[in-house]
């Protein structure tokens, strides 16, 4: 066991944890005043649910001894056997319990990302049941396929350093399905649904950028050069994407907005996630510039054209950004950065890009199908959506009996 590695991964764990409250604020500022608490509540309740689900059953399903390349066994149910000595298969220099905790924070933030697409209209009990089922039947298997030893996508050679597939593509496309199944918000396209507190969103974005250093650099699972490289790639892509969004928005709409700059940074962070430990900083610039541009187009042009109500752009940012990131990894990965990775198209190897594309395709088909089935199943026993009156009044009062901002004192 190495104390430097262990210290670093524990700090990274805390950083990734902070991303979920950060996400809560990022989303919270973007909804209308009457729904801000319900939006914060989504992330917060997920922290509670997933922290327990993970240690009871999630970790073993995702990382437990492999069964047919599809799922982990229940050997580590309730963290049985997961102790203070390292597990040489996963992170040889840090205690198994620390590796588990680090992975837990990823399992927490992933379902929280989905909450962005169903904001302002989903029923709270249905939401909780959805999260539990999605985590167990979508996230856990997918994490196993990509990161688990014996997982079939890992065996295939698909590269996902910190969760482009597992976190962003899975949540992004599931978010799209959820938005379609739930339907548009009342008054969508007519009523003003402008963000009620952009500074709150900016604070959230800042916390996300900060936490992402733990997300990406920590995925090196050691306090080493690769972690340092991932750290720099992360910052570079975020910066490039923020600038790209600022420029593209100026060209498209005549003005660069603060919300745009913050969203741009987040889309860059998403795009670099799968490749953070495989590409060079210069490649990160390209990944960020393209990521910011592509996500901007997905949100401002494509969403408008197709008219689906992905309220907070979980799909536009994470689904699309993650897809680009996974393919970009297939283009820009180089063994000079990470000998355990592979070379991408840019370095003369076309097969990695094919593998990445296949991995993305499989992930999309699986998450979309599974999410649809889960939502439909839930809808047979309870209402997915709040009533029209509840939606009009606002979820803070209707579902939670709370006001975020008092009227006079």
């Amino acid at each position, binding site marked *: 066991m190495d104390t430097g590695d262990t210290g670093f991964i524990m700090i990274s764990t805390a950083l990734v944890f902070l991303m979920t409250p950060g996400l809560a604020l990022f989303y919270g500022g973007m909804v209308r005043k009457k729904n801000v608490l319900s939006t914060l509540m989504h992330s917060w309740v997920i922290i509670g649910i997933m922290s327990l689900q993970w240690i009871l059953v999630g970790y073993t399903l995702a990382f437990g001894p492999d069964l047919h390349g599809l799922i982990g066994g229940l050997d580590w149910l309730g963290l049985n056997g997961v102790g203070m000595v390292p597990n040489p298969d996963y992170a040889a220099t840090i205690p198994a319990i620390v590796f588990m905790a680090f992975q837990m924070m990823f399992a927490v933030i992933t379902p929280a990302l989905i909450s962005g697409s169903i904001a302002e209209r989903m029923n709270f009990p249905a939401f909780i049941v959805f999260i539990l089922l999605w985590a167990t039947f979508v996230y856990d298997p997918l994490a196993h396929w990509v990161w688990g030893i014996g997982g079939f996508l890992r065996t295939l050679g698909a590269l996902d350093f910190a969760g482009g597939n597992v976190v962003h593509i899975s949540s992004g496309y599931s978010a799209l399905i959820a938005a379609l199944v739930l339907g548009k918000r009342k008054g969508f396209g007519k009523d*003003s649904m*402008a*963000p009620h507190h952009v500074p709150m969103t900016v604070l959230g974005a800042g916390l996300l950028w900060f936490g992402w250093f733990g997300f990406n650099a920590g995925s090196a699972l050691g306090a080493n050069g690769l972690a340092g490289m991932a750290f720099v790639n992360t910052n570079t892509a975020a910066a490039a994407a923020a600038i790209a969004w600022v420029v593209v*928005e100026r060209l*498209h*709409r005549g*003005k660069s*907005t603060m*919300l*745009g700059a913050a*969203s741009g940074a987040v889309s860059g962070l998403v795009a670099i996630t799968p490749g953070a430990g495989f590409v060079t900083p210069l490649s990160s610039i390209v990944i960020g510039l393209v990521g910011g541009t592509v996500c*901007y187009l997905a*949100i*401002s*042009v494509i969403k*408008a054209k197709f008219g689906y109500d992905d309220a907070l*752009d979980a799909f536009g940012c994470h689904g699309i950004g993650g897809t680009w990131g996974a393919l970009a990894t297939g283009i820009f990965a180089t063994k000079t950065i990470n000998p355990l990775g592979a070379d991408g198209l840019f370095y003369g190897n076309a097969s990695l890009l094919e593998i990445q594309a296949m991995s993305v395709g499989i992930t999309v088909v699986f998450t979309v199908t599974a999410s649809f089935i889960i939502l439909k199943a839930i809808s047979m026993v309870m209402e997915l959506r709040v009533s029209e009156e509840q939606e009009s009044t606002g979820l803070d009062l209707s579902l939670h009996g709370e006001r975020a901002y008092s009227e006079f004192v």
Partner: protein
Amino acid sequence: MRKIEAIIRPGKLDSVKDALSNHGVNGLTVTQVIGCGKQKGNTQIYRGVEYTVHLIPKVKIEIVVMDKYVEEIIRVITQEAQTGEIGDGKIFVSAVENAFTIRTGATGATGATGEQAL
């Protein structure tokens, strides 16, 4: 007694308030309002979606004064609040039946705008 409601540009509040104070009016009520008149709205952009907002933030000052001071007060407000551009605002004058000071119970003239010069 008359009530004067002046809807003015938010940026003019301080200078109007100071001018009123110089003319003996120190009691006033201010609310933030949004409204529209001839002034066109503005366009806001959120994640590429354009919102045209027709209602514009203004500030409303309400004061209650004795009839004989109404013309002078209107002149004072107008002078301070005017820019010459569309959107300067409006002043409405209405009759007030009575006015009371809560602390002392005083009514009528002293109930209006406190016990100042007016």
